[in-house]
């Protein structure tokens, strides 16, 4: 099968949906003629023009609130934040409005709104362009939260987002945007709430999020040499969270590590740990462990930046420690 990048895969899903559904439009800064800072909309402006690819002033709160209103009244807006860090100015519109309106209207209004942006640490992007923030959205009822890690998943999950009537936070890690993978040309969807077993193994389960999936798979190669076979689970969506797949794996392995670049306290690792302890306590042969990025703003200098992100070496060590526990 042909191979394309993750960002091309997402764009393919977008292009197909826009061709079919005239109610879809995209807003953002530079998503018109420029085609998106991360090439999220390349070529689409020429096809669909300014009404459906609308460049925006630097008014994140404004255009998120606007798109919430549009989603309630018959269209399917996509907000392309470029860097997801810029979403913070719109938290009121998201948490108090977009997430609540279906509920408050008893389901009489829908909220088919996609919020997309690039996440993650890397390339000395520094502290205002390295955030992820998904725990905040997972905490709040009303959102779907998607973190694809392969081109195949990105296309299928974005296609699902494009027909969902719920607000979907779609987060692509900057460091994997240009990773290539096999992707069918035809359209397909991947349901939310189904984790992917990225690697099978029987000694230990690692749930990895976003860019940590790739690093964990690298760590697994080294661990395999030492005879440790790790099962790697990529949750793909954090809400809904497919805890059954994790529990099934822990039932087999008895050991669980969660690897997540983002901050530890009240993070997704805490939630996974808590659920596994609640529902799979008897399967656990050792404490559930978490490996997170450092609890500090993301610094710029390469030496400092490297120090705040979990690396392959640390993942190897965390698994070894867990196996010894």
């Amino acid at each position, binding site marked *: 099968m042909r191979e394309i990048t993750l960002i091309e895969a997402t764009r393919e899903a977008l292009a197909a949906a826009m061709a079919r559904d*005239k*109610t879809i*439009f995209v807003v953002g800064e530079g998503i018109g003629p420029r085609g998106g800072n991360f090439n999220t909309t390349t070529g689409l402006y020429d096809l669909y023009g300014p*009404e*459906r690819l*609308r460049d*925006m*002033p630097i*008014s994140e*709160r*404004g*255009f*998120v*609130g*606007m*798109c*919430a*209103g*549009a*989603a*309630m*009244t*018959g*269209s399917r*807006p996509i907000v392309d934040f470029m860097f997801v860090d810029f979403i913070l100015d719109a938290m*009121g*519109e998201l948490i*108090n*409005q977009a997430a609540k*309106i*279906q*509920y*408050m*209207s*008893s*389901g*009489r*209004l*829908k*909220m088919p709104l996609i919020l997309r942006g690039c996440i993650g640490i890397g390339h000395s992007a520094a502290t205002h362009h390295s955030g992820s923030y998904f725990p905040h959205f997972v905490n709040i*009822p*009303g959102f*779907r939260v998607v973190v694809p890690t392969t081109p195949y998943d990105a296309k299928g999950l974005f296609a699902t987002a494009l027909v*969902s*009537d*719920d607000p979907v936070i779609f987060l692509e890690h900057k460091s994997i945007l240009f990773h290539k993978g096999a992707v069918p040309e035809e359209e397909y969807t991947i*349901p*939310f*709430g*189904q*984790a992917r077993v990225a690697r099978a193994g029987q000694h230990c389960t690692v749930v990895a999020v976003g860019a940590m999936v790739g690093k964990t798979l690298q760590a697994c190669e080294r661990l395999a040499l030492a005879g440790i076979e790790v099962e790697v689970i990529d949750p793909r969506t954090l*809400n*809904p969270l*497919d805890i*059954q*797949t994790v529990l*099934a794996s822990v039932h087999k392995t008895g050991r669980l590590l969660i690897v997540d670049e983002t901050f530890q306290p009240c993070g997704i690792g805490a939630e996974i740990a808590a659920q596994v302890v609640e529902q799979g306590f008897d399967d656990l042969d050792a404490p559930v462990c978490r490996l997170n990025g450092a609890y500090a703003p993301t610094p710029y200098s390469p030496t400092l930046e490297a120090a705040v992100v979990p690396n392959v070496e640390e993942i190897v060590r965390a698994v070894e420690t867990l196996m010894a526990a």
Partner: protein
Amino acid sequence: MSAQQTTDPAPGQIDRSAALECYRVMLTIRRTEEQLARSHQQGLIHGACHTYVGQEAIAAGVCAHLRPDDAVFSTHRGHGHALAKGMPPHELIAELFGRATGCSRGRGGSMHLFAPEIGMMGTSGIVGPCILQATGAGYSFQLLKTDRVGVAFFGDGAVNNGAFHEGLNLASICRLPVLFVCENNQYATEISFAYAAGNPQVGMRGSAYGMPGVTLDGNDVVAVYQAAGEAVARARAGGGPTLLECRTYRTRAHAEGMRDVGYRTQEEVERWKAQDPIARCRSYLLQKQAVAVDALEQIEADVQTTVTEAERFARNSPWPEAATACQHVYSEPAQPASH
């Protein structure tokens, strides 16, 4: 009871039937609010209750031009907008009573009124969002090639908020069919707009966004009707958004049961009570539209009956089932993983 016009809603002078309908709407709001105030004292309203008393001309005059498929978004002080958009009083009262028959099924109360069937797209307990959401409705209506319009009602307090700035600018640059209706009642809770705003002239702010801005007497339903008519017609015709500043006054406390002293004088309140929009409309009908007194008295009696029955309906309505408390968080439940 509905504010929708059967006659041509084109801009221009209000005609007699439109004026009579405005009178009915205003009176319905007033009587409903008075009922809610009594109900609040009786403990039938569990949360907040922000009445619209004194500001009725604005909702009535604007909504007179709207169709059910036009979209209204409003604030914490939204009872009047809901009623003017066509919500029957019993659905509003039941909502404040927390009953399953309320417009929001008891989920919302005074600050969260939803009736999308009639284009009442929601009120918000947070100041600001309605401005942006109305802009978004305008975006949909433009994209979908309709002549529908979005309307935001908000207070002077929202004018100092970033949502006002960003929303008006977005509507302007996209030339969206939206009305921004600022009800400048001169106070945000106890903070006067003159204190809170570096420049307390709202109408002239339109120019900062390249859109028409109009300041008018918000207690004169005839003036509101005319200005809103022009703005709605312009919006429907693709002429873009308008900012309307309606100068008005709330004559009751910010919310029922709240202390209402210290931040404004009794004299000021009385001065504004003398400008009561309903009394002024009544005089106008009698004097300028030659309506007979008994026609008005008939309306007054009808409205009172409606409101009295609405209160009884609400009081006798069932409570929402606790078991429903978690429904509709999502449009569809998550698909279970297949294992």
